[in-house]
C-alpha cells in the first residue's frame, strides 16, 4: 500500500542567541491509510514541531515531508489539526464555530448547517448547538474543536496533546469517544496522527507508536499495537508495551 505521508530525513534546527539548536534529527517514517499513529517522547523532543511540519505550518531545515508524494509546502485542506488549547471563537455559538470549518469551501448555508449539525451529533454535542464557548466545560470545548476539525472531512487528523490540559476523568471519556469516532465508517479521517507525552494513552489509542529520543529528537523505536479495540487498560499486554516504551525513553 502506498504511503499517504512520508517523512524523509527530516531535521529541524534554529538559532537562538547565536547558538544553533537542533530540535529534530534524521526523522524517517511513513504513515499508511487507516492508521492511527501516536508519537511519544519526553518534553522538548520536538514532537509538536514535527506535527507542525506535517501540517505545513513549519518547514524542515533538512529533508522533506511528502503527502501523497507531493512535498508539503503549505497547509492542505485535507488535513485538520487540533491543539490542546481550543481556539474557539467566543462570540460564535457551537453551531457557528463548527460551521466555520466549512465556510471556506463555498458551501450553501443550508448544506453547511446540516453537515455541522450531523458532526455536532457525532461528537455528542447535540443539545449544545446554541451554547457559547464560555458556557462549556473543558471536554465539551474540545468536542467542538474535534467537530470543527472533522466537519471538512479531512483525510488526515493531527492532534497535539489533545487531552493534556483536562481533568483526567473528562480525558478518559473523550478518549473512548475518539475510539468510537475512529471506528465509525461514516466519519473520516483515514489517518490520525497524535502527539502525546502520555504513554498509556498512546498504547490505548494507537495502531503504531513512534518513540522519539530527548532533544534533538530522533526515532528511538517503533511499536505496533495489534490489540483489538476497545482495549483493556489494565491488561498484561498493555502493561508490557508501556514498559517497553518507557524503557526506551528512560
Amino acid at each position: 500500500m502506498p504511503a499517504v505521508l512520508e517523512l524523509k530525513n527530516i531535521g529541524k534546527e534554529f538559532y537562538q542567541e547565536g547558538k544553533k539548536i537542533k530540535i529534530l534529527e534524521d526523522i524517517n517514517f511513513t504513515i499508511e491509510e487507516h492508521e492511527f499513529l501516536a508519537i511519544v517522547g519526553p518534553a522538548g523532543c520536538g514532537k509538536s514541531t514535527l506535527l507542525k511540519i506535517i501540517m505545513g505550518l513549519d518547514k524542515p531545515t533538512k529533508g522533506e515531508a511528502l503527502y501523497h508524494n507531493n512535498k508539503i509546502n503549505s497547509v492542505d485542506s485535507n488535513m485538520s489539526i487540533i491543539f490542546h488549547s481550543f481556539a474557539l471563537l467566543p462570540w460564535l455559538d457551537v453551531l457557528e464555530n463548527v460551521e466555520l470549518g466549512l465556510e471556506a469551501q463555498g458551501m450553501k448555508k443550508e448544506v453547511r448547517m446540516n453537515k455541522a449539525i450531523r458532526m455536532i451529533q457525532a461528537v455528542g454535542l447535540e443539545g449544545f448547538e446554541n451554547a457559547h464557548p464560555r458556557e462549556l466545560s473543558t471536554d465539551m470545548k474540545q468536542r467542538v474543536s474535534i467537530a470543527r476539525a472533522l466537519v471538512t472531512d479531512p483525510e488526515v487528523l493531527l492532534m497535539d496533546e489533545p487531552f493534556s490540559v483536562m481533568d483526567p476523568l473528562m480525558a478518559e471519556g473523550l478518549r473512548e469517544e475518539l475510539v468510537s469516532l475512529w471506528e465509525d465508517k461514516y466519519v473520516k479521517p483515514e489517518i490520525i496522527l497524535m502527539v502525546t507525552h502520555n504513554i498509556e494513552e498512546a498504547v490505548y489509542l494507537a495502531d503504531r507508536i513512534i518513540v522519539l529520543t530527548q532533544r534533538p529528537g530522533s526515532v528511538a523505536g517503533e511499536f505496533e499495537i495489534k490489540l483489538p479495540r476497545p482495549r483493556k487498560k489494565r491488561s498484561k499486554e498493555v502493561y508490557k508495551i508501556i514498559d517497553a516504551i518507557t524503557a526506551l525513553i528512560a
Partner: protein
Amino acid sequence: MDKNIILPKVEVGRTIGFLEILDDYGSKVDIAKIAADLLLDLDDVLPVVDTAEMFNFIKVEDGDLTLTKSGLEFVIQGIRGRKKIINNCLNNTTVFQIINKEINKDKEKSMDKEELLSILRTLLPDTEVENAFRIILEWGRHGLVLRYDSEDSQVRMI
C-alpha cells in the same frame, strides 16, 4: 446512599469518564484505590461517586464501588443510547422536575436564570449556586431536557 442528593454535583464528562474507568477495572473497586490510581484526592472523587450513585449507575458498599446493571447498560451504549438513558434519569431527578413544574406554570414557558439561581439557593443553602447552575445546564442540555439561551438568559424545556 445520601438521600439528600437531588441534583448532579459534577459535570457530564467527569461522570461518564468515571464510569468508563470503573468498567475497565471489571469488578468491585475500593474508592481509595481508584482515587490513588487516578492521582486524585478523595475530595475530587466523592462528588463524582455521589452523582453516579444518584443516577443509579453505581452501587457503594463499605467503600467499594460496583457498576449496577443500569451502569453496565449505560457504558456499552453509543452516544445516542447514552443520551436516551440520561434523558430518562434527568426526568426522574428532583431538580429537573422542579424546573419543569415552574416552567410549565409560566405564561412564556420559560424561566429566567436569576429565578433558577434563586431556586438553587433554597435547595442548596451552603453552596455556590453559579457552579451548580452551570452543571445543571450541562446535564439538561446533554440529556436533551432543557435549552438555555445566554442572550436572553432564559431556560426552556425541550
